[in-house]
Every structure is written in C-alpha cells, then in structure tokens.
C-alpha cells in the first residue's frame, strides 16, 4: 500500500500534475486517510523539493512545477480534508505593504508556505493596513507575512503592525516580515514577531511562529 503514497511523492517531485491527481484519487478509493495522504506523501514531497532547492539541485521553476502538481492533488483531496475536519498548519495573509508593487518575493514565500501545508490568503500588492486587519477579523488569519522592497515603503510595515494593535487584533496574529531593505533589527524595532532573509527560510520561520 505504501508504494501508492510513494507514487504521489514521486509525481510531485517530478512535477507531474495529472498523475499526481490520479494517484491521490486512487489512494482515496483504497481508503487511505486524507490527512495521511497529505502529510506522508504530499507535504513530504514538497519538503524534499525544498531540500533540493536549498542544496542547489532545483531552481524555482522546478519548485513551481512541483507546487502545481501538489495543487492538482490537493484539488482532489480538499473535499475529503474538509470532511475529515483536517486543519492547515495556519492561515496566512500575505501581501506587499502599501505603496509597494514588488511582489516576486511575496509570491515565492506564498508558494513555499502553501507547499508546507499553510493556507494562503494572498492579498496582493499595495495592501493597506485595513485589509490586513480585515483578514484577521473576517478570515480567521493567524499569521501575517509583510513584504517591502523600498526604503520608502518599509515604514508601512510599522504602520501595519501599529494598526493591528489599534484594532485590538495584534494578539490574535503573528507577523513576519521580509524584503531587500528589511533586517532582523528592523523587525524587532517595529514589533514584528520574525524576519526572514529570503523566501526559502520563510517556511521554518512561519512554523516556529505558529508553534510558539
């Protein structure tokens, strides 16, 4: 039976979307627990993709192909996960701060978090503090990821965190930040919970924050 989980794992690693979906369906038909398929095959495969990336054996294009294969499997699996009341690791609202349109880093972080079983609410670019507050109040978000590339937009990270405090929701949510001009010290200074130097380190940071 375990070879079926291995097939899903291999298909994701090779970026094969349709075979991934078919293998997930086969596992479900055979009575595998949805949570087991997700964690033992799919998340494990994406973790391996992350490792290969860290070690320079994969580039982002290979990761994206793998992520798309994972998505195709998830599309099959999701209704069963809902039925089984399976919870994602955390729900993350991600966006570039007000005035900032540079979203490549943000998109990579979102993709990597999704592959690690986080639920992503992508708020896009040029996101006002009010939208992040609404995400916490109305969407049950428990982690916010802020990105900025300019020295003249990174102050909106502080503005956003201050707005979360003023709205009385800061304690309900962790905040992580990143972007070219951002530093660990800056994160501390503005009251963020964490800083990631690049997209590949964002997953472990996010995990540590939600598990804290």
């Amino acid at each position: 039976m375990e070879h079926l989980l291995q097939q899903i794992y291999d298909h994701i690693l090779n970026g094969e979307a349709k075979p991934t979906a078919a293998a997930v369906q086969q596992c479900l038909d055979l009575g595998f627990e949805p949570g087991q398929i997700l964690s033992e095959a799919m998340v494990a495969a994406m973790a391996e993709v992350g490792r290969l990336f860290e070690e320079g054996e994969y580039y982002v294009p290979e990761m994206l192909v793998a992520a798309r294969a994972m998505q195709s499997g998830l599309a099959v699996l999701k209704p069963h996960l809902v039925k089984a009341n399976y919870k994602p690791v955390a729900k993350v609202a991600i966006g570039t701060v007000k005035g900032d349109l540079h979203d490549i880093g943000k998109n990579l972080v979102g993709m990597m978090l999704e592959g690690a079983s986080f639920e992503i609410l992508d708020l896009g670019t040029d996101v006002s503090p009010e939208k992040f507050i609404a995400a916490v109040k109305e969407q049950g978000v428990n982690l916010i990821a802020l990105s900025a590339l300019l020295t003249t937009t990174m102050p909106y990270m502080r503005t956003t965190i201050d707005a979360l405090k003023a709205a009385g929701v800061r304690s309900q949510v962790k905040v992580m930040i990143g972007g070219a001009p951002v530093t660990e010290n800056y994160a501390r200074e503005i009251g963020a919970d964490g800083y990631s130097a690049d997209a590949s380190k964002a997953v472990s940071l996010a995990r540590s924050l939600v598990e804290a």
Partner: protein
Amino acid sequence: MPGYTSLAISNIDNFIYGNCPRPVALKNGLVIGGGTVYPELNFTLPDMLIEKSSMPEVLKQYAQMIEGACQRAVELHAPGLVVEFELLPDLTLTPQWGAEVTAIVRETLDKTQSQHGLKVGLRVTPNDIREFAHPPILRSGGFVDKMFRSFELCAAAGADFLAVESTGGKEIHDDAILNGDLHGSVFALGVLGARDMAWLWRRIVEISSSYSVIPSGDSACGFANTAMVLAEQKFIPRVWAAAIRVMSVPRSLVAFEQGALGPNKDCAYEGPFIKAITGCPISLEGAEAACAHLSPIGNIAKAVPDLWSNESVNNVKLLGAMAPTVSLEQLVYATRLMNVASSHGPASARALRDWVSESDATLDPQAYVLRPDVVLDLSAQIIAEPTPYLRTRRAAQAALACLRQAGANGELTYSNLERRWLDKLSRSADELPENEQEFTATMISLVNKTKVRLEEYGIE
C-alpha cells in the same frame, strides 16, 4: 525615426568606453560619449515615508545628498558630473513633489558649475506608476496622466535628460522568469513590451521636444535585472538570466527608434548592445553599484560605458561620509582610471577594456554575453531581423547558441543543472514560430487574463 538595419559600431577597436559615434552635448559644453567617461551619481531616501507632512524632510534629505556629492566632486577634480534623480513612486504620484526635488538638485548643480566650473548634467527619471492599477492601465487614466505630468514638471524644473524604467509587459514577464518560460518572456518583451515602448516613447520624445530636454533612454530593469537578481539568489539558472538580458535588447531599442538619444539608463545592462546598434552613448553600473545590488558583471560593465553609475544609494551615514558622497568618490576614482588609460592612447584604453572584460567573462554567462566582441556579434544578428518580435526571437536563439558554443570552447563553465537548462531553453527557442501573428494568437490563449489587459497593448 531611425529604423536600425546595421550596426553603428561594427569594429571592435571602436567599441570602447567614453566614445561613441553619436555623442550627446549639453549647452554647458558637457559632451557624453565624446572621449571622457563621467560619473553619474544616483541617490535615494533613507527609511522614511513620503507624505505631505514629511516633504520638508524629503527636500532636506535631497539637498543634503546633492550638496555633499557636489562638494566631493569638486574636491576630487571630477572632469564633470551627471546626477540622476530617480523619482520614487510617491514623488511621481504627486508630480509637484518630484518637480520640487528636481529644482533643488538643479539649483545646487548650477551653483557648483558657476562657482567651480564643474560641468554638470541632470537626468530625471519619473517612476512608471501605471502598474499601480491592477492589471496595469497603460494608455489612459489617472496614473498615466500623473506620470506624464511628472515628466513635464521635472523637465520644466531643470532636467537635462528624461528617462524611465518602463514596465509594459512586466505583469506577464515576472511569471515567465520564475517558470523558466521562454515563450512567455518573448511575448512580454518582444510583443507587449515593444508595443508599449513605442506608444510611451513617442510621448516622452514629444514632451522632451516641448521642453528642450534630451530624451535619453529606457531600461529593461524590471525584466532583465529582476532575472539577474533572482539568478544571484540561485532562484533561476544563470543561463536563463543571460538569455533574458539579450532578449531585452529589441524592447529597449524601441525607445531609440522613437527618438531617444542617450545616454541610455545606467541599470540597462543591455546598453552595450544599444550603443553598438545606435551609436548613442550609454550609462552603466557595476562594481560601484554593489551598494544597491549584487551582480556578476561588476567589471565587464565598465568596458564600453560613457557614464559610470552607482545605481542608487540611500542617504545613510557611513564612516567616510554620507553614503551618496562615498559613492560619488568611488565613481570619480573609477572614471579617473578609465580616462587616464584613454589619455595614453587607444591601445591603452583597449587594454583596460579587455582586462575588465576578461576578469568577468569566463565566470558567468551573464558576463559572457556582455563581452564586447560577443555584443557586436549578437547585435548584428538581432538587427538583421525587421521587427521587435523577430529580433527578440533571434536574440533568444543567438544568445543560447552563443552560450552553448562558449561552453563547448571552454570559454565558459557551468554546472550540469545549468547545462540542462541551456538545453531546455534552446529547444524552447527553436520552437518559436517565425510568424508573429501565429505566436501572439497562441500566447493570448495561454496568458492569465486576470494579470494583463491586452487591449492596452493594442491587442484585441
């Protein structure tokens, strides 16, 4: 408008820093591309918000930056000084603010010129704020109006040169970079980007003419430099970033076909190709731009520029001085060496050019495609094609073939993973159809319509 069909510089001996067939002269006698390489300093604000209440501080910061730089240029006997004021988005969104900064920079430059005889030039680069609309609205609406108003007000406030880093096609190209999607990149650069450039630059040239300023050039920064930075982070293959660099040439050339005269933008590493094709002067940046970004082309970028820039540095205190002053000092010394080499005759200048080229070219494919002889070869192939699409297609095929050849010759080494990507990209480039309509029809069926308004490019 010039329709380039042959190279302005075809002899490698004449392809060198500081000299070009079509130099640009300012009224004060500063000639760019006439034999001397000048520093071009760019600076930006430290960590601060730009809003109405902070504008006095914004103006103070810019005044401090330009005063420090001018003083240092005089102290170091710079032969001339070009400053670029690259507007941040907020300074373009409120055009008057950008004009106020322009006026402050102009005033200090003029004062320095009159007091010390230092010949000065000012490039002003409004931000392409059209991408604030999602998907970007490129040809009408408030953002477009404000951007063009910014060009007008900055021209009136004292710019000598107008430039931009336009972003038409970027909304498609970002995903193409990350997916290693060569056809997507060709569509973004050779079809969408080129169409937007033609529309945008017609207007910039008109504005420049109205205000008697020089339309200088555009940069594929949002395309090729994005790829370069992602390659530096090991997110994408270096061969892919190198191919994108060459593929960006036809797009940036459109500005010159519409009447741009140079000096081309500093961050446009496609500049050497532009210089070879048009004969217009270019600015470039390299080792002295490490304050802004990593690059594997810090020395080779110095082979053929007419201005030498630092890209941008924010106004923070370093041990030596404020960072823009430090940057200016570095630029003055770098250009001084280049000019001294030239003063010893063409052979000495060429020796320096070849040394800076050789020092980078074997280490990275992005550097290899900037080797002056390679630039001339690829430029000739690009210009042999009649349209931006076909030129971009040829650029992709020729750049990848050139990198494969360099690997086979032992002039360039790359990893097995890079080699696999080179093969993959080459196959993809070979599949590009000759017929642009056929290609466009295919791409239209594939693009994510939530990310792009094709009608903004004249595509129905």
